[in-house]
């Protein structure tokens, strides 16, 4: 696997990992699961304050393509997550994680989508702000979107219960 040392993706991931460990954003941790595979990361994200996600710590995996940073990684929550922009299988649906070019949902501007300027840190920060402010226009989880729009109280309850489950309580 020595040959891959030269690859842009690996070098950049190593740089980002170094930056994230030396200067981590508040509450967020992320890094490769094993040293052998730098293309699969695990991340822990805190639930933002003043939201039903408050107090929770959510785990997710980030899977990087070989042509990272030209293509975005895929982020998937590995804990139960009830959120309008997270699919039932945990995959996060935010615009900066969508590759540029073809717009599958036909509502995003090209400027909102992935570009090499983004980074793991920015993705994780975006996800934290996504937790605080769901975008109900792009409902990945229709049920959650509907509940968030129509019955916020119930939504908060469900999320709180979920947060507790995510913590294993």
């Amino acid at each position, binding site marked *: 696997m020595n040959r891959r040392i*030269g690859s842009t993706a690996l070098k950049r991931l190593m740089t980002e990992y170094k930056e994230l460990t030396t200067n981590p954003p508040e509450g967020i941790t992320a890094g490769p699961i094993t040293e052998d595979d730098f293309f699969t990361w695990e991340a822990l994200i805190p639930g933002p304050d003043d939201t039903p996600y408050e107090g929770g710590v959510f785990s997710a995996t980030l899977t990087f393509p070989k042509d990272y940073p030209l293509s975005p990684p895929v982020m998937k929550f590995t804990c139960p997550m009830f959120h309008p922009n997270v699919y039932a299988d945990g995959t996060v649906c935010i615009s900066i994680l969508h590759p540029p*070019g073809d717009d599958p949902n036909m509502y995003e501007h090209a400027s909102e989508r992935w570009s090499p300027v983004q980074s793991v840190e920015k993705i994780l920060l975006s996800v934290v702000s996504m937790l605080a402010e769901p975008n109900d226009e792009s409902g990945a989880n229709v049920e959650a979107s509907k509940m968030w729009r129509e019955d916020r109280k119930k939504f908060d309850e469900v999320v709180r219960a979920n947060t507790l489950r995510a913590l294993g309580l």
Partner: protein
Amino acid sequence: MRFAIFGCLSTALTIAVVANAWAQRGQFFTACIHLTRSSASLMILLNMGLYITILLGRALQRLFFGQLRALEVEHLYERSWFAVTETCLAMTIFRDEFDIRFIILFGLLLLVKIFHWIVQDRVEFMEQAPNPSVGWHVRMQTITAILAAIDLAMIVYAVQYTRTRGPSMMIIFGFEYTILLSLVLSTFVKYLLHSYDLRRDRPWEEKSMYIFYVDLMHDFEKLVTYFCFFGIVVYYYSLPLHIVRDLYMTLRSFIHRCRDLIQYRRATANMNERYPDATPEELSATDRVCIICREEMDIAGNNVVPAAPVNNGQPRAGAGGRVPAAGGPRPIAHPDTPKKLYCGHIFHFHCLRSWLERQQSCPTCRRSVLEQPSAAAAQQAAGRPPAGGAPGNAVNDFQAFWQQHQQLFAGGVLHAAPGVNTPGPSVQPQANGGATAANPIRTLMGEPQNLPTSSIPDGMMFPITLTPLIPLTGAHSGQPQTIPPVLDHLSDEQLQSMEGRSREAMMERIRALQNIQHQLTGVITQLMQISQIIPPPSATPGAESGSGIGTSRSGDSDGAGVNAGAGSSSSSSAARDETVDKKGKGVAQES
């Protein structure tokens, strides 16, 4: 588990049916007839066939691919679903020929298709997977060869069948296998490309481009096949509903790919000249980090800035490591050379190239890289002030100059008005009128080479009261006065440096044009002064001339007069230069 139950049930039912038939008839031949006559037993037998096919498929899959990944299984389900529904639609076309044979052929087709899909997924996965073993390669090559052979055999069979018996449902299979053959071939080429990439020590930058071309070819073949099929089926039967979706998808994908290709070619053609190398000053103005690879950009050791145009649009990036600084016959940009886009953002040459393959826009600000330089600069000038410290960007300078010019035009009318309303002693212009008039005329006729500058030294000789009338071309434009080059005395090198599409050449040309504009401005200013000083024939010279100047300066009629005097220049430029002139005089008066 469910599959095991299904298998047990199928087997049990089949045995029961066969045993029943045997018991009733007692003879092989009659038993067979009995089985085929009864549709219930036929269904059971078909079900058994399905079970055996699945079993066979699973065995083959184990043999060639081992365990399937979750993604592959997902893809299989998704694609199988489409394949089945589309075949159901296809059956409506060939409903008259619908029989057991069709079902068997269809089952076989689906099985072969599934293997094609798995191979496709596997080859795509090669990019992400750790180094595959030798056994893996052997299995991949074997399955590819087998699939290609099956496809080919089925195509030949379909063609022969159609030839001897005329159009039938074999057409659909013939076309399906043609597309599969194209798929397996493109997959194999991709496999070869990936294998080659795996063998290399350095990452292979052009790979994505080759893969793009392979995909494009496959799309094209598919499109041609579909159109042929479409034509034939429409001719002999009716509208082939079942391929409409796939046809549309293929067409869309093909058009997208072609568009991408064109844009990509446009963006990367002449990349070396199209995007200038970043200068050390520009580089130090940023944090020196290439946003794509997050590594430092450095100019040192990359002194291969091409002097001659590079014909090859895609320099061999990463092919042979560093290009010696001395360069071969054709200088090639080093892959690590920092390149600047029109929007001012700087990236490594190879990083920029691999990004432009996907998206023809700046990764940082998303401005299209295909925009014309002047348009981009105009946007930049409008959006934010030009970056300070950077050495003169000719385009920006020109834009700034132009804007200043126009501002002067807009503001000049207001600024000049008080100056005009307070004319100096009426004697002044008149007394010196002759001298001033003579001066510009002399400069016009005698020294055409340095028109604008000539007026300044000449002006020095005049009495100080004349300052309002001295055309200060240098002062009003806000540009340092440049002495226009003597164009016909340029050396060959200098002339060559003004050719081509490189940045230097453009700047040279713009400079020359700017000089011409200065000269024109100077000439027009002087002409205006002449026209102001020499009273119109109808007006009486003397005491009236002072007020005459005052009114004519603010009036439009004078602009027309100037226009006539200037002759060649348009009325708008004459009017603009008139106000510029006033501004100049205003400044001079203040001083």
